[in-house]
Structure formats: structure tokens, C-alpha cells
């Protein structure tokens, strides 16, 4: 009870604990606050005592020489070392929890750009500077940057991860919201003029409200469906044939599996691998295939890329179907407004919202097989 009251008092000094690991972070924090108070009081008390007791008086003799003490010095070397080891282990345990992404997490795709956050749900909903997620479900954020480094930070979740641009990686981080409400999203890595305006909100909803919300803004298909459209629009399908007769590897069932590469290395066909294969295909060549594929860097937008990833994921092996079945459930009502948007005055400038209508000129003039 005492502890509870104390924590209530502290709540002014702590953000809401809105994720499964928020309390773990706070416990370590409060422990360290206690430790700091303890050592500060200890040292201050010693200094004040010495200051009064040994203050300089007129005609003080020269104080006696005291060499030091191996025993004392060992004590105050070893005790802090042991305490440090303990804090280290505690911190590392939390870190592993924060960055070990559970297999059953639902993906939300995030694009950071100067200066906004764009979100795509597998079901097809798109949002800007605002994202809705259900309570009690594990969510994985798969994030890419269009320009500089940003950092996706939700203080209420104690969750932060840099979003680093580059062809070979998605930044991923996860959380499980435990409290409904609306919480800040901040960009935590300085990214230029309007860095402090690159903020938004995450709204955690009950499962029921979330389903209502999902069915509200009907979309032009799920992410996987749009990805499938892109897959043929960009001509990928001519080469990556589903019957494995193409010049390039078959992609059905590949997601999440281990791929053998030229040179004897292996790679896991995860989101980052697929992204890298599209943007810099020469980086990892699958064993037994020729390096034929051109780079699509600058031709596919980050959001389209995420849709392609979602598509390849949806045709992955049966045991990791994450996006596919849910996407199917939400798909039917494919009519009304294209984007759910709030907060930002700018519309999404890069990606055309309807992927099928405007084939990229680059894509049509550069048939995939010709390289």
C-alpha cells in the first residue's frame, strides 16, 4: 500500500505506463533514483560532517599524513562494481525484452520523412501523424525513412527506435499497449527545420472500437492486394514466376525462410531482405541465379515497397500468414475515402494512393528482363 501511494505521488514524474514493458523500465528507473539519493546523502553527510569537525582553526598544526587504505579503497571499488553488474544485467534484460520481437505481432508499416509520420495498416488503412492500434495486441512497427534519420518515440510505451534511411534495412520495434488513450509520438532524432513538429499521436482502442474503426474508412484493398497489383505493374511477375520457371527465384513461400546465397552465405528472407533485394539487388544474389535484376531505387516509393513486402509476406509459408487472413477479412468494402488523414496539412505527396492507375514511367520503360 505504501509503495502504491508512493507510486501515485511519482505519477506526476512519470509518463503513463501504457505498454507491457513500461513498468519494467520504470522499476529500474525508480531503483536508480533511490540509489542516487542514497549515495548523494551518504557523500554529502560525510562532507558536511568533515567540514564542521575539521574546519580550519587558527594555529592548526599541519594535519597528519594519511597514506590511504588498501582495505577501504578495495571496498569502495568492489561494492560499486557489484552494484554496477546488477544494474547492467537488469538493463540488459529489459533491452532484450524491448527488442526481441514476438512472432505473433501484427505489423504496422511506418514511413518517416521530413517532417511527418505515415502509417499503413495491413488491412489497407493509411494515416498521417496518427495511428490507431488495439489494446492487448502485440504490434510490430516496420519503419523506413525517405530522407534523413528520424527516431520513432512513444514515451508512454517507453519505446524508441531510430528510423535509418538506406536500402538494406527496416528498423523494427514492438510493443503491446496495455491502456487505452491517446499518447504522444515524438521524433527523437534531430532531422532539420521542423524536427519539433514531427510529432503525432498513437490512439490505443479497445478491440471492439478498433474493429469499428477499421471498418470505417474503407480502402482500395489491403496492403497485400496493392502489393500484388504493384508486383505485376512493375513487371516483377514476368521473372519471379510462381511455377519457378522464371529466370529469378520463385517468391511463393519464401518469406521468413533461409535463403542460400552465392558465395555460400545464408540470409533470412525477412522484411529487410526483401527491401534490399528490390533496392539493391546485387547485394545478395541467390545461389544458382544470375544477377539480372535492376534496382528499383527511386522508382518505388517507401510505401509501395512496404506493400510489396506485405504481398510477399502474404504468399509466404502457411505457418506465418500474419497479414494475409486478416487482410482478407477487412478487404471486402473497397470503396470510399482513400486516406485517413489528420494532423498534417500536407497530403501524402509521394505515393499515389491508387497504385493501379498511374503506372510509373520508369517501370514501363524498363522491362525487368532486359538486364
Amino acid at each position, binding site marked *: 500500500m505504501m509503495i502504491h501511494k508512493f507510486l501515485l505521488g511519482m505519477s506526476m*514524474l*512519470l*509518463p503513463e505506463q501504457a505498454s507491457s514493458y513500461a513498468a*519494467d*523500465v520504470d522499476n*529500474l*528507473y525508480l531503483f*536508480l533514483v533511490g*540509489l542516487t539519493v542514497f*549515495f*548523494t546523502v551518504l*557523500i554529502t553527510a560525510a*562532507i558536511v560532517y*568533515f*567540514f564542521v569537525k*575539521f574546519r*580550519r*582553526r587558527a594555529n592548526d598544526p599541519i*594535519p*597528519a*599524513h*594519511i597514506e*590511504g587504505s588498501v582495505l*577501504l*579503497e578495495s571496498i*569502495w*571499488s568492489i561494492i*560499486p*562494481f557489484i552494484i*554496477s553488474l546488477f*544494474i*547492467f544485467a537488469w*538493463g*540488459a534484460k*529489459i*533491452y*532484450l525484452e524491448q527488442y526481441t520481437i514476438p512472432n505473433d505481432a501484427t505489423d504496422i508499416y511506418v514511413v518517416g520523412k*521530413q517532417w511527418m509520420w505515415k502509417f499503413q495498416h495491413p488491412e489497407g488503412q493509411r494515416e498521417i501523424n496518427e495511428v490507431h492500434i488495439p489494446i492487448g495486441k502485440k504490434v510490430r512497427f516496420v519503419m523506413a525513412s525517405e530522407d*534523413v*534519420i528520424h*527516431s520513432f518515440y512513444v*514515451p*508512454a510505451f517507453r*519505446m*524508441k527506435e*531510430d528510423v*535509418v*534511411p*538506406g*536500402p538494406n534495412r527496416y*528498423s523494427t520495434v514492438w510493443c503491446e499497449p496495455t491502456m487505452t488513450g491517446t499518447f*504522444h509520438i*515524438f521524433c*527523437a*532524432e*534531430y532531422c*532539420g*527545420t521542423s*524536427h*519539433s513538429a514531427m510529432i503525432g499521436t498513437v490512439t490505443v482502442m479497445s478491440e471492439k472500437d478498433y474493429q469499428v474503426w477499421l471498418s470505417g474508412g474503407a480502402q482500395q484493398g489491403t496492403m497485400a492486394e496493392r502489393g500484388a497489383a504493384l508486383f505485376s505493374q512493375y513487371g516483377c511477375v514476368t521473372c519471379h514466376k510462381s511455377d519457378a520457371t522464371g529466370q529469378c527465384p520463385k517468391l511463393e513461400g519464401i518469406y521468413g525462410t533461409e535463403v542460400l546465397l552465392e558465395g555460400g552465405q545464408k540470409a533470412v528472407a525477412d522484411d529487410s531482405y526483401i527491401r534490399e533485394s528490390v533496392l539493391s539487388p546485387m547485394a545478395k544474389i541467390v545461389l544458382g541465379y544470375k544477377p539480372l535484376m535492376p534496382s528499383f531505387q527511386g522508382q518505388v516509393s517507401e510505401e509501395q515497397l512496404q506493400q510489396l513486402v506485405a504481398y510477399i509476406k502474404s504468399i509466404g509459408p502457411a505457418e506465418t500468414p500474419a497479414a494475409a487472413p486478416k487482410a482478407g477479412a477487412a478487404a471486402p468494402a473497397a470503396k470510399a475515402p482513400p486516406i485517413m488523414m489528420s494532423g498534417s496539412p500536407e497530403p501524402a505527396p509521394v505515393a499515389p494512393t491508387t497504385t493501379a492507375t498511374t503506372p510509373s514511367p520508369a517501370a514501363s520503360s524498363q522491362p525487368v528482363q532486359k538486364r
Partner: protein
Amino acid sequence: MKSAISQQRFNRDGEPQTYLNNGHGLRSWFLTKDHKRIAMLYLVSVAFFFAVGGIYALLIRINLLAPNGLFESDTYNRIFTTHGIIMVFFFLVPAVPAVLGNFLLPIMIGAKDLAFPKINLLSWYLYIFGAAFTVIAVIAGGVDTGWTFYTPYSSTYSNSNVLLAGVGIFIVGFSSILTGLNFIVTVHTMRAPGLTWFRLPLFVWANYATSLVIMLSTPVLAITVSLLAIERVAHVGIFDPAIGGDPVLFQHMFWFYSHPAVYIMVLPAMGVISELIANMSKKNVFGYKLVAMSSLAIGVFGFLVWGHHLFVSTQSVYLGIIFSFLSFAVAIPSAIKVFNWTATLFKGSISYDAPMLYGLGFIGLFLIGGMTGLFVAAVGLDVHLTDTYFVIAHFHYVMVGGSLMGFLGGMHLWWPKMTGRMYPEAWARAAMVIQFVGFNLTFFPQFILGYLGMPRRYATYPPEFQVLHIFSTAGATILAIGMAITICYLIWSLKKGQRATPNPWGAAGLEWMTTSPPPTENFYETPVVTWEAYDFTVVRPEDVTGMAAE
């Protein structure tokens, strides 16, 4: 060895001979090879940049009074960048070594000068030259990348004067390297007879360790800045992923210098604190050898922890855990120092004069700075804290609470030696207390702000953070008043201060065995050292009182 007072020589006008009246006019200063005059040149320069950096700090605090900010975001971004660059590269790094180290290191080891006096002067000119580039960058419209220059923002996206500022930092780095080189050679080759390594004052040990760190890390800064310039000018893909580079590589390289740079900034100040505590309590430093070795340990471990700045930069989880472990390891030598300083006070004869107050201020603030270092070293907690005001508060407790308190404490302790005048004691004590209060009011609320999630480098912020920001700005105002008082009375004392005796504190150390201010050659006869460091039995009463015992 005869007392300093009995050795005093006089020039033709009947004035005591000192380094200050040996030569007049600008030429005698700007072409001097005397380490003491070069130290004074540095003092004027770093004081100027400290004042400029301080004004920029106040502008930051003024902007943050209102949630929407009082300046345009672009303006604010330039303000905090300028504050960071000036304070780090043009004040904190050179302050203690180039001013106090330059002045005292040769005297403390009984030498007439540093090993390479001309190179010493060159290093000051490099500092000024580098500073000029940075000042031009600021006048020409400023830089908006933050002092950390993260890519690809700095290399591709920023349209501010990154290149000019980079050139300035590149040049000033060589100034540090030359000073470090000079110190290392001097300590190795020019110690007075009998002055063995373990008889050296701890200030010399601290500067020696710092010099090693400077020599080993600063070239990496030069390389990093050069690569950044190459990418910016020639568009060679090094850090920008759009042209084949890796932005995180920049962070590794930058922090490989900049984490050790934290110790470049704080180690010499720790050396000052050892001198302050010992001399103002007339006690030898408790566990001298452990304190000396802990400086070296900090220097070595400091090179192994740069990755703790990248816990959320997509670096591997296991790398994060290793860097976390190493960061805890580097905390131990700092903890040892704090305990040993405290133990030094035991059975001492403790003076309440300003240098001691600064020494205590250092211990208190560095204690909080160091303990909060454990928060950010704990990797799972740092995920929440990094890039927030918690980190800002943490490193200001270390840099301002540590380095600045150490620098000011040292300036007060050695002011009589450097200028031949006493500062006004009552004013100094009052100013120190004002600074201490102002400092805590400025930065303590920032720990809370940070834990609540306030990110750093935000020109605007959600309204719920305003109250704490107002406290912080109020504190900064008090701190500025405290600093202004110190600057005023120190300048005043140059002409009006009471004349100093050779050893006004009754302190131990060779610098107190020569006149105040010392003559150009420091000592008229080379001292022969037969005593350990901090042996107060060899202090001669006539040097303290200034009355020659005839």
C-alpha cells in the same frame, strides 16, 4: 632550496621581475614563447568563447519559455548548434589543459617551459584560426546540424554552413593534438631532479592521461570531418545511403572521438579538484596512486564505450549489451575518485575559501552527473532516455557541474599565482553559491522533463512541459548572474586586488615555491625534489606571509 621570497629579483625600475613585465607591447605577447603568456592568451580566448556560448545558452532558454517557441525553428536550430559547437570545441576541450595546464604543468614539474615552446604558440594560433572559421560560419548564417553533425542530414540535406564549421573543428583539433604532444614530451623529459612519477601532482597525472586521449582520439575526429566534407563537396557515397553510404558509420566514427572527448573535458578538471581538495585541507590526497591510476583507467576505458550512443540506432542488440557493460566499467574509476576525495577531508584542516567551495560543488554535481550516467548506461532504460532532456541534464551535470566548476575552482586557486593579485574572497564565495543554486535550478528540472519524454533539440513542445521549462530558464538566469559577478570581480582584481604572496594558501607544490607571478624562467635555481606530493611540512612560512625572514 631557498624560499621564493628571498630569491625575488628586481628590474631596473625596482619592480619585482615577473613574466608579466618582461616585455611590453603586443609583439611581446603575440610572438611569445613563454608558456605562461600563451596560457594567458588562451585564457582571454576561451573566456570570450565561454561568454559567447553562454549568451547562446540564454537564447535557448528564452525560446523555451513558451510552448510554441519565441524564435523560428530554423533560428532555434542554429542557436543550439552554435551553443554546442562553441562550448564543446572552443571552451570545454581547451579550457583546463590549455589555460591551467599550460601555465602550471611546467612549473609543477620544476621546468622552465614546455618541451616545444614554438609549437605551443602555434597551437594557440591554430585555435584562433579554427575559431575564425567557426565564427565566420556563424556570421554567414549559422549551422543547423547540432554539434553532432549526424549524417545524412549534415552531408546532404542541410543547407547551412556545415563545411565552414567543419573546417574550423578540423583545425582546432590540431591545436589540441599539439598541446597534448607537448605535455607528454614535457612530463617524460623535463621533470626536476628527484621528481619521480609518483611524486607528480595529480593535476600533472590528469593532464598526462588527457594528452594521451587527445593524441589517440582527435585524429579520428579529423578523419570523420574530412570524410563528411568529401561527401558534401564531391558527393562520394560514404555516409549517405542514397549514394551508397552508411549513416550509422558516421555515428561510430563521431563517437569514437566524442566519447573520449568527454574525458578530455572532465579529466583535467578532476586533476584540478585533487589539487583544490588537498591544498585547501592541507592533506595529502587519500590513496594517491589509485587516484592517479584511475585517470589512466578512465582514459583507456573511455575508448571502448562509444557504442552507448547508438543503443537505438539499429545496432545489434548484443553489441548494445556489450557497450552497456563497458560503460559500467568506466564508471568505477570515477566512483573511486569521489570516495578518495571525500576521504581526503578526514582529519584535514579545512578552509572555507572559494577554491574549496568550488571543489565541493564539483563533487556534489559530478556525483549526480556520474550517478545519472548509470541510468543512461543501463541499456533498457536508455531506450527511453536517449535523445531526451534527461541526457541533456546528465551531460550538463558532468560538463558544467564538473568541468566548469573545476575550471573556476582552479582559476580561483591559481589566480594569485597567475596574476599576482588576490581575488575578493567574499564576492567569490557569494558568486559560487549563486552559480551552484542557479545551476541546479536550471538542470534538475530537465531530468524530470526527460523522463516525461521531452525530446532534445525541440524548438516547440507540448504545453504540459512548460512549467518545468520556466523553472529551467529561471535557473539559467541566476547562473548567468553568478557568472557575470565572477567575471567582474576577477577583472577588477587585476588592478585593485591585494598583492599576492608566493604562497597565499600555504599550499604544497613547486608552483607555490616561486614568486607570484613567477619570473619568465619560473625558477631562478632548478628545484631538487626530495619530498612526496602534498607534503605540507616543506611549506615555508615566509612564502605564505610574504615577509622575508632576515
